[in-house]
Each structure stands twice: as structure tokens, then as C-alpha cells.
């Protein structure tokens, strides 16, 4: 082949799409046509994971990895590389030693293990043939034609797969309960509400490999005896919804969905329902209410959904990522699955890595990997040479993990033991410039806004906790506030109706446990050690001052006084803490502390 490239993969995940990847795809098609290279296929794919390097373009079979491609770069790639056979060096992704490396050679991928995301980036998510070519529907065929419902359930049980939606409940057990629940009408539901701030694991699976979820739900329907399923997906995920619709349409057309699937007589129909963006609607019983058209508030349990769920019928409800593991377990077996991860938490977990880390993106790692490996080996460490301070797993329901626990293995039990939780896969890294009281306040605010209001502990308790955190970060905290905060946290945790309220105090409790000195500094010394809480910061002029008067001119509050060529000073009472003086000083004599 003269140009070494007959396929161009362009990431059309959310990150790259906002980086104009649709335009890149369009430009490739046009440029290739114009150069008489229309036999080169342009394939849009799901997320590759390395979002911070997007938009990502990969050529095959020569395996070149272009990062941060702009639409205007396309002509050059087509001309030099595809037509001319010479990759465009300046656009190729460079490894740690500055050499061009292929996608899966990058450090980012070395410690990853891609099961759930295996096809993301390899196939066109809107092409069922691509899916089939990459092993799609083998599991469905095997389950429907060669296995009984009981056998399917027992493989899932043996695999030790645990729910990826947050709580880590054994999936096989749930399937078994639903299978054994009496009732002629049953449902299978997929929880794609993903409300965790900063999380986009489920979204990427749905955007990159939607058929894997459709296939798994069909298998689940067969296993538990359901002929109808719902996917509850956030309305804020239009691309995921679109790809799901395309996937379901194609599966229906090819007989992988609908009536008499694969001529086995098994019927299974799927519909999509949109969530309106309420975090609590990710809680499974609130989700069921929402599908039924009722207010999205949690239901009393028992009865559990497996016994009495959607429209009063036995219902299996699993998370997107949980389903995305199913097909591979059916085809490769429980032992294969157990060969990854830890005995208590087998398999892999997808994390949305964000915050103060170099490689922001989507990673899939075997359970049991340490936080350090994720942050440093995969995430490439903390930017700007800053130190690691803490990581938040489990989103607003989880906890802050301090540096002393950075070697904690990531599995359900270990995270719980240090006061956090696995959650659905948000992983936010914080460097040493972050105020931990501020972080606790941020998550508490989120929960205040997302409380459904059904029970008083959460409805009022979270507001009171947030008010206290506001006071502390605002410099008005009193030492008694800490005891009150703890009392409230205990009560909200014990008495709340659902897990939203029960887990909402976690960020406060963990920051309290690991960073109590920061709380005390805010209260006793009226100082924010991280220098983030503006109410606690003061601007001061140091001896470096040359008396140029520039700061005094810049101050909008006329808080700075001083004679020409003499040291100036700031009146704390007048200062509005805007920082204008700091920017104006030519000799950097003004400090904030």
C-alpha cells in the first residue's frame, strides 16, 4: 500500500466533539475525496480516554496517533501522510522521552485493562456491522441458544461481578432474585442517569459502544424472564441518546432485539426514558418512579425492585457499566473475569479522572490498583509541579482520600475502610492549593441542591451543614460549630430515608477526619492554609515596595495609601479583596495570605 493508511479513526466522544471532531471528520472526507483517496475509510469512534489530548485521530494499519488535532490540520495530514506516506511529526502524540508513540504504547494506557471500553475507539458506534465484527452478539447467541436462564444467572454469580453504579451489590444475586420473583411480567432497567459531577464513564460507554449495553440487557431479559426493558438516560446526553437510538434501531432490524430474537422465540423490547437531571433519580427507586411518570423521590424498601419494581412488577436494575461487563463474561467465562481485580472485587473499573492531574480522561483499571498508580502512572501526576493533597472518589457521596492513603488499593472494601466509597467512578484529584473545607462545602452545596426533600434529616440537615461550612470559610466559624457539624452529620447519615442523604455527610466527615487542622485554622486563626477562602485572605504590601503608587491607582476601593517612593499600606477594613493591586505591582511586593 502506497500510503500505509487505509482507515482514519476520529474520536467522537464528548470531549473531542466539543473540540470540533465532527468538523475534523467532515474535513477528512472532503480532503480524501478531493485527493482521489475516497477508498480510505473515515471512522468516527467513541472515547479513547485520553480526553486532555483531544481531539484524537488514529490512522491504521500504520498506527499513528495524532493528538490535539484541529480541523485546519486535516489537509496537511491527508497531503503529507495519507497521500505522501510521511506522518506529520508535529501533530503526533509524544511519549515521556519526546518520541512519537502509538496510542496503546502511551504511558496512559500501560496500566489500563480495557474490558468495558474494549471496543470504544475501535468501532464506529453507529455501525452494527463493526460491532458484530468485533465479537458483538456472540454472547447473546450463546446465551439464547446454548444456555438456560439459570445457567446465565449462575455464570454471572460465579464471576463475582458487583454493581458498578455505586453500591457494589453482587450482580448475579440481583439477577437471581429477579429470576425467582413470582410474576409473569418483569422488567429490565438500565440506570444511565450518571449524575455524579465530573463523571462520564457511562456516557462514554453509551457513546462508544451502545450495542454492548443493548445486548447485555437482552441477555438479562432472557435470564430473569423479562420481555421489556427501559434505559433511563440523562436528557443532557444527547449524543448518547442518539447513538442508543441508532443502535436499538439497527439491532431491531437485524433481529437482535424485538420479537423472536435470533429465531429462538424469545421477545425483548427496549425503550428509552429521559431523566431531567435530578441526581436523586439515579437512586433506583426514584428512577422507577420517574419512569412511571411520578415525582422522582425514593420509595420505601422493602419491597425491593427485584420483587416489586417498575409498575409493581419484579424489576432488574443495573448500571450501564455493569451491563457492559456482561457479554464478555458470557463468552469468556467467570474464571476469566475473576482473573482480573481482587477476590472481593473482581474485574475492572472505569474512572473519570479529573481535577489537578495531567492526563484528564477516562481510564479503565483492574480493581486493586492503587490510587498512586492511577494518579501518577496513568494520570501523569499533578500539573505545575504541585504536590498531591487528596483525591475524591464516589463524588459527593464519597470521601476525600489524603496523601497518607495514596497506596490504598481501589476496591469496594478498601475504599469503604478509609471512609470513602467506590461510587460510580468519579475520581477527582486535588493538589495542595485546594482548601479542604472549601471542597466539603462544594459537595455539600451540590447535595443541598439535589436533596429531593422527602425526609427532614436530608432536606434540612444538609442546609444546616452547608450554612456552618459557609460560616467557617467566611471567617465566622466558632469552635462550637465543629461539634454541631458532627452531630448533624451523624444524624443525617443515620436517619435519612435514602442513600443520597445517608452518604451526603461523607465529604465533611472525611475532610474532618484527615484535615481537621484546616478546619481549626479557619476557625481559630481565621486563616485558610491553602489560601483559597477569599474571606480569610488579606493583601499585604511587603518591604519590596518601591513606592511607585501603581497599586493605589489600581485599587477600586481606595484602600491603599502611601507617598511616592515610600512603602504603601493596605487598609484591611476598606479592602474588597479583588486582587487588582497584586496585578498592578511591578515588583511583586504585594502578597496574599
Amino acid at each position: 500500500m502506497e500510503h500505509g493508511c487505509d482507515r482514519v479513526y476520529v474520536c467522537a466522544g464528548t470531549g473531542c466533539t466539543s473540540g470540533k471532531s465532527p468538523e475534523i471528520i467532515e474535513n477528512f472526507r472532503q480532503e480524501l475525496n478531493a485527493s482521489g483517496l475516497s477508498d480510505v475509510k473515515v471512522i468516527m469512534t467513541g472515547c479513547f480516554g485520553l480526553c486532555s489530548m483531544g481531539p484524537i485521530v488514529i490512522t491504521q494499519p500504520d498506527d499513528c496517533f495524532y493528538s490535539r488535532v484541529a480541523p485546519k490540520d486535516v489537509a496537511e495530514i491527508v497531503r503529507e501522510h495519507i497521500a505522501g506516506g510521511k506522518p506529520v511529526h508535529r501533530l503526533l502524540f509524544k511519549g515521556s522521552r519526546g518520541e512519537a508513540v502509538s496510542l496503546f504504547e502511551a504511558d496512559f494506557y500501560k496500566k489500563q485493562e480495557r474490558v468495558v471500553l474494549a471496543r470504544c475507539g475501535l468501532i464506529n458506534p453507529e455501525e452494527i456491522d463493526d460491532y458484530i465484527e468485533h465479537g458483538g452478539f456472540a454472547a447473546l447467541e450463546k446465551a439464547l441458544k446454548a444456555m438456560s436462564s439459570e445457567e446465565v444467572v449462575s455464570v454471572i454469580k460465579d464471576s463475582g461481578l458487583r454493581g458498578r453504579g455505586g453500591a457494589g451489590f453482587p450482580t448475579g444475586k440481583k439477577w437471581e432474585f429477579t429470576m425467582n420473583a413470582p410474576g409473569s411480567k418483569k422488567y429490565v432497567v438500565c440506570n444511565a442517569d450518571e449524575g455524579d459531577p465530573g463523571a462520564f464513564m457511562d456516557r462514554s460507554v453509551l457513546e462508544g459502544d451502545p450495542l454492548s449495553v443493548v445486548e447485555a440487557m437482552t441477555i438479562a431479559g432472557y435470564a430473569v424472564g423479562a420481555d421489556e426493558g427501559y434505559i433511563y438516560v440523562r436528557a443532557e446526553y444527547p449524543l448518547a441518546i442518539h447513538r442508543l437510538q441508532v443502535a436499538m434501531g439497527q439491532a431491531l432490524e437485524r433481529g437482535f432485539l424485538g420479537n423472536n430474537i435470533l429465531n429462538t422465540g424469545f421477545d425483548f423490547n427496549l425503550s428509552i426514558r429521559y431523566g431531567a437531571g435530578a441526581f436523586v433519580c439515579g437512586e433506583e427507586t426514584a428512577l422507577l418512579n420517574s419512569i412511571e411518570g411520578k415525582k422522582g423521590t425514593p420509595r420505601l424498601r422493602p419491597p425491593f425492585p427485584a420483587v416489586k419494581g417498575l409498575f409493581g412488577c419484579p424489576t432488574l436494575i443495573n448500571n450501564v457499566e455493569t451491563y457492559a461487563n456482561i457479554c464478555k463474561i458470557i463468552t469468556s467465562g467467570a474464571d476469566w473475569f475473576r482473573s482480573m481485580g481482587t477476590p472481593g472485587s473482581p474485574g475492572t473499573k472505569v474512572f473519570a479522572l479529573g481535577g489537578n492531574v495531567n492526563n484528564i480522561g477516562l481510564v479503565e483499571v483492574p480493581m486493586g490498583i492503587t490510587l498512586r498508580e492511577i494518579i501518577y502512572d496513568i494520570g501523569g501526576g499533578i500539573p505545575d509541579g504541585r504536590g498531591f493533597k487528596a483525591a475524591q472518589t464516589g463524588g459527593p457521596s464519597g470521601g476525600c482520600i489524603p496523601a497518607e492513603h495514596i497506596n490504598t488499593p481501589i476496591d469496594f472494601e478498601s475504599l469503604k475502610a478509609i471512609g470513602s466509597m467506590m461510587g460510580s467512578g468519579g475520581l477527582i484529584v486535588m493538589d495542595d492549593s485546594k482548601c479542604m473545607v472549601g471542597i466539603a462545602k462544594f459537595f455539600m452545596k451540590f447535595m443541598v441542591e439535589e436533596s429531593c426533600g422527602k425526609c427532614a434529616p436530608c432536606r434540612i440537615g444538609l442546609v444546616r451543614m452547608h450554612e456552618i461550612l459557609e460560616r467557617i470559610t467566611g471567617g465566622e466559624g466558632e469552635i462550637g460549630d465543629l461539634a454541631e457539624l458532627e452531630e448533624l452529620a451523624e444524624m443525617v447519615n443515620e436517619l435519612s430515608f435514602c442513600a443520597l442523604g445517608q452518604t451526603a455527610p461523607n465529604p465533611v466527615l472525611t475532610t474532618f477526619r484527615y484535615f481537621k487542622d484546616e478546619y481549626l485554622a479557619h476557625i481559630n486563626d481565621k486563616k485558610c492554609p491553602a489560601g483559597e477562602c477569599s474571606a480569610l485572605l488579606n493583601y499585604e504590601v511587603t518591604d519590596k515596595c518601591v513606592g511607585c503608587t501603581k497599586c493605589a491607582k489600581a485599587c477600586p476601593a481606595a484602600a491603599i495609601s502611601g507617598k511616592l517612593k515610600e512603602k504603601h499600606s493596605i487598609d484591611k477594613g476598606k479592602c474588597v479583596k479583588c486582587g487588582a493591586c497584586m496585578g498592578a505591582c511591578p515588583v511583586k511586593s504585594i502578597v496574599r495570605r
Partner: protein
Amino acid sequence: MINIFLNGSELAVKEGSTVLEACKGAGVSIPTFCYDERLKAEGSCRICVVEVEGAPKLMPSCSTLVAPGMRVLTHSPKVVKLRKKLLELMLSNHEISCLQCEKAGNCLLQDYAYEYEVDTEKTKGRKKIAEYASSNKFFSLDQSKCILCGRCARTCSQLQANDVWAMAGRGFETEVSTPFGIDMEEAGCVHCGNCVSVCPVGALKPNTRHKFRAWETRKVRSTCAYCGVGCQIDLLVKDDKVVGVEPAGGKSNNGLLCVKGKFAFDFINHKDRLTEPLIRGEDGRLRPASWDEALGLVAGKTKEIRAEFGADAIMGLSSARVTNEENYLFMKYMRAAVGTNNVDHCARL
């Protein structure tokens, strides 16, 4: 029957009953706000939690079923501490004006605050500002007192089958409202007042011209005089005057009333109310008479008419305002004593 251990003592309870029911049976009192034995368990107010050995968290007794050998502590230090904190929290979002509140003395929040020695100064903060304000001729809603127990909405929905109230909004801003905040009448309210009767605090209150404190009244059990259903009521009586009506849990009404039974009692003390028989004299004016004289007159006239025109010339019409038994007696009187089948009453429509 199965055995559980309630606060250390073994107790035989009916299988399938809740811990709360078991406690009630054993005379152990547990605070509740959202619970009403007639309604489906909601489990949302959280005040009825108890400690169940082996459970990871405190359990709501209203919706936890008993199990053989279950060990339950209803007033362990932890339970008491957390109930107290919850009450502190609820009161921090409540307009505490017990001095002016008509509900004082008959308010669960007040009772439990006393029982659990709540310090209302401890937990403080902003209070909810509700959007929906409702009042009608019969009752009004004061959202600043509402604790969102949801009893009003569930009573209206599950017992009155009208679905007028809803818990609208989310989180701290949740409030009692009609669907989309429309007028109560438009939402289908029949002013039965059953929501008012179940409100445990001073949020839904009858509009009343009477001034009274709960402890000044005594309850007189009676049968509602408006129709033949026989709803059981408790008349609230202060200084021998009826100042209010509360539904009682009779077989015929299950603690419910209609608008008349609940609110229309002021006729009892009305100055125009007939309290003795009146006979119209030759001059066309009504004069008071004794029962003997009045009944004698009616009996005499009845006999006269029957003798002259036959019994079927007479028609008896009784009232929906009397009891079934009284209507029955009247029917008997017309048929057996007067001798005609011409008998009817006004509420047979």
C-alpha cells in the same frame, strides 16, 4: 405469633405486624409524624426509628416488619439522641410561635419537643419561604408551620380520593401545594377538611371565630347530625359551647368527615336556632309551646285528617339530619301508626 425482644423483654406479636404496631400493643410509645394507621406506610419523617440488633442503621419502626427473635430497642441512648437532634432540626425550620398558635396543646411537634427536651437555640439557620399560599372559607394553610409529613396529601389521595395536595418542589424548598399551584377548588377540593384533621401541627387549621386553647376544651363523643351515615365526631366543648369538631374513628366513617360535619357546627350555638316547639296561633304568629302541647296538636290533626280523607291523604317527610335509627322509627310510625306508605326523607337523592 412470633416472639421478639422489645427493650429486653420477650413479647409475642402477630407475624406480619410492624415494629410500631408491636410497640403499640405493648404500650411502648414511639413518636410519629407521617404515620397514620389508615394510610400506606411512608417512612419519611424518620422520627419513629428504633435500634434493631444486627441492622446497619436505625430502622423506621412504622415500616419494619417484626422477625422471629428480633431485638428492638426503642429508647436506647443513640435513638433518643438522634430523635432529639432531628427535632432540633425540624424546629430550626419552623415558625416557633406557640404562644399565638391555635394548635398549641394539641401539637405533636410541641409534645415531642417537650418529651425529648429539645433546645431550640442549638440548631439555627434560614427558614423555608413557601410560594403557595392557600386559604378558603373553611381552613387555611400556614406553610411556616408545615413539617412536610405529607399526611394531608396522602389522606386526600388515599382516603378522600381527591388528590388535591401534592408535595411540590424539591429539597429545602419543598412545600405543600396543589398541582401546579392552581386554586384548591379547581384542583377538586370538596372542603371535607380531612387534611386539616390529620395535620399534626398548626399548618392546616380551621378558620374559626372561636378563641380557645386545647386544654380548655373537653371532647364530647357524638354522632354527626347532618345525615344518616352516622359519622362519629368529637365535639370540642369550651364553657358548654361547641367550638370545634374532630372526626372520631367510628366504624362508619373511619376518622373522616365531610365539609358539613367538620365545619358546619356553629348552628348549635346560633341565636336563631329553634330550641323549643313553636305553634302558629290564630294571629298567624309563632308562639313557644311545650312538647306535650305540640305533639298533642300534631297527633290530633293527623287523626282528624285520616278520619275525613283517609290515611293516604297524609305524607311524612323526615330529615337527613337525623340518624338512621330515627328515620327508621319515623317510617314505622307512618306505616304502622298513621297507616300510610307515604313516607320519604330529604336525602334519598
